[in-house]
């Protein structure tokens, strides 16, 4: 238990340290805060005075520590473009991205488990073969291309679904605007979530299928048959529980990966989330916003990885949360 907690903390610290270093060097090298603050019309002496005042001439370490100190207090600077605290700007867009990821995860879990299990149990049926064929095509199509094709088909040609934006949203707790509670919001979620899921879904189906097939060959499943248990109990208790162990580990990492893919989906669907904002910030060289994005995403990674390890430890009786098999 101690080892688990310490490792997690250690990993979190490393991740955040790397991100902070990266962020800081971005802030240090990209763009000129002075120009953003005062424009071009100030004389050289005034600039120098201002630089001194802002601490821009301090040694690297001092500046870095000041940056970390501010970051720990939640102050990541002010967005040049929005003229608002960068963290607030990012956090405002967080719900949109999280809902996208959540919707995609839902699609993945709801489809991959039954499809993967079915095609593992009946590997020779035409349906399984179709699923496997589709899944290999699925992983071969880049997310953005799926998104474009989906827009072309469902929005341009058929005109069934909206092609951009979040549609109508309603506030839930405080500032969290959700699209899950309105019909329009749900319709808007459909295409982006499906596109985002399109790359992970085939991966999960293939993973679940191959793990499940391996488990079905195991001695303890054979033994379960010899005990005369019902097929449903064997498949969904004996086999599935063992199948899910590796799936949870790999799946956890993949869900983290999905955050990266939101940048692509959000760009195609002009989804007002963090990823879209990030890309805009890059184009505008809005350094504080870039930094804020990196830190928020880093935190999300650390949290998901910890959660995944915890769940794994809970499901697997042979692991005592130390990551080591007893």
């Amino acid at each position, binding site marked *: 238990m101690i080892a688990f907690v310490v490792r997690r903390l250690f*990993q979190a610290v490393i991740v955040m340290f790397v991100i902070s270093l990266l962020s800081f060097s971005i802030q240090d090298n990209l763009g000129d805060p002075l120009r953003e603050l005062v424009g071009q019309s100030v004389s050289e002496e005034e600039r120098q005075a201002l630089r001194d005042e802002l601490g821009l001439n301090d040694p690297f370490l001092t500046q870095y520590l000041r940056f970390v100190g501010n970051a720990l207090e939640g102050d990541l600077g002010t967005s040049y473009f929005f003229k608002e605290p960068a963290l607030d700007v990012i956090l405002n867009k967080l719900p949109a991205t999280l809902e996208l990821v959540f919707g995609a995860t839902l699609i993945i879990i709801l489809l991959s488990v039954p499809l993967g299990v079915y095609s593992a149990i009946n590997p020779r049926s035409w349906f399984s073969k179709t699923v496997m064929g589709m899944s290999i095509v699925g992983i071969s199509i880049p997310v953005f*291309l799926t998104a474009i094709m989906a*827009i072309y088909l469902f929005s341009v040609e058929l005109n069934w679904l909206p092609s951009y934006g979040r549609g109508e949203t309603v506030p839930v707790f405080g500032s969290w605007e959700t699209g899950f509670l309105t019909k329009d919001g749900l319709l808007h979620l459909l295409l982006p979530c499906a596109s985002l899921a399109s790359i992970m879904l085939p991966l999960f189906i293939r993973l679940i299928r191959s793990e499940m097939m391996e488990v079905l060959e195991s001695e303890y499943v054979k033994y379960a048959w010899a005990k005369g248990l019902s097929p449903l109990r064997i498949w969904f208790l004996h086999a599935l529980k063992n199948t899910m162990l590796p799936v949870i580990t790999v799946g956890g990492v993949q869900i*983290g990966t999905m955050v*990266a*893919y939101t940048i*692509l989906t959000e*760009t195609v669907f002009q989804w007002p989330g963090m990823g879209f904002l990030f890309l805009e910030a890059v184009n505008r060289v809005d350094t504080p916003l870039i930094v804020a994005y990196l830190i928020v995403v880093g935190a999300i990674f650390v949290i998901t990885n910890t959660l995944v390890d915890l769940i794994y430890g809970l499901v697997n009786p042979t692991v005592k949360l130390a990551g080591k098999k007893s």
Partner: protein
Amino acid sequence: MTTPVEVLDIPTRPSAWARFKDTHLFHSFTRDKVAMVSFGLFVLYALAALFAPLIAPYNPYDPASIDIMNSELPPIWQEGADPAFLLGTDAQGRDMLSTMLYGTRISLMIGICAVMLQMFLGVLIGLSAGYFGGRVDSFLMRMADIQLSFSTMMVAIVVLAVFQAAFGAELYADLAIFMLILVIGIAEWPQYARTVRASVLAEKHKEYVDAARVMGFGSGRIMWRHILPNTLSPLLVISTVQVANAIISEASLSFLGLGMPVSQPSLGSLISSGFEYIFSGAWWITVLPGIVLVVLVLVMNLLGDWLRDVLNPKLYKG
């Protein structure tokens, strides 16, 4: 007292080709239609990429051969097409066929070079981690874990975005090809490192390695001559899939505007440049390179799947 000598039927050593023809690999290849078609298509792609400058009817990099008046011409089977442009033209009036041939060339090149870089880094790190073990191993693997949890795309997007912002778009366009190779190559090292390490660890505990140690062979000899050759099949399997992934990564980055510039397009940047015209009906600018890209990646993935099935170490008792 003599021990009877058992005699095998074929005492002579067959030629290398004959031996290859006798392998499990070759047998399953000839029996698997999907593998044969995939391999054929891959060879076709490779040839097209290699000889693009010879095959392509136009040179898309040559501004002189481009006439903006020819822009957005549809492919030949559609109304309003110009027979001079078999597959139509893009928004700048470049011949789609030529651009796609050159694009394939760039995509494949980036994919293969990036994977070579990954392999170099990954094999080096994986071998060291697996062979030295202990602290070196746990440090390297923790780094790999952290990097993997970030995902290649994320790392690549951030790094390229920062570089683009730092260099300015023009200088960046010139360096894009190297940056892409570098970033995709470096970001994916954990895949190789983990695979190599896992097979080194598995092999290290096998008795033939002990046998080699008992013979007094040095660790370098054991590492390179005994263990490494036994880790090649997993490397081959992941390499095909990695090339496919690298091509997708490159396309995605180019789509975001962080990859190849429009003046020197890869398949990804071609798709990207056509995206805005899809609503106006000029679907071919996006769809045609899209199909070329998907087929290329699909073929690589199918080959990877086939290799995984055939080379699956469980099939050998050894």
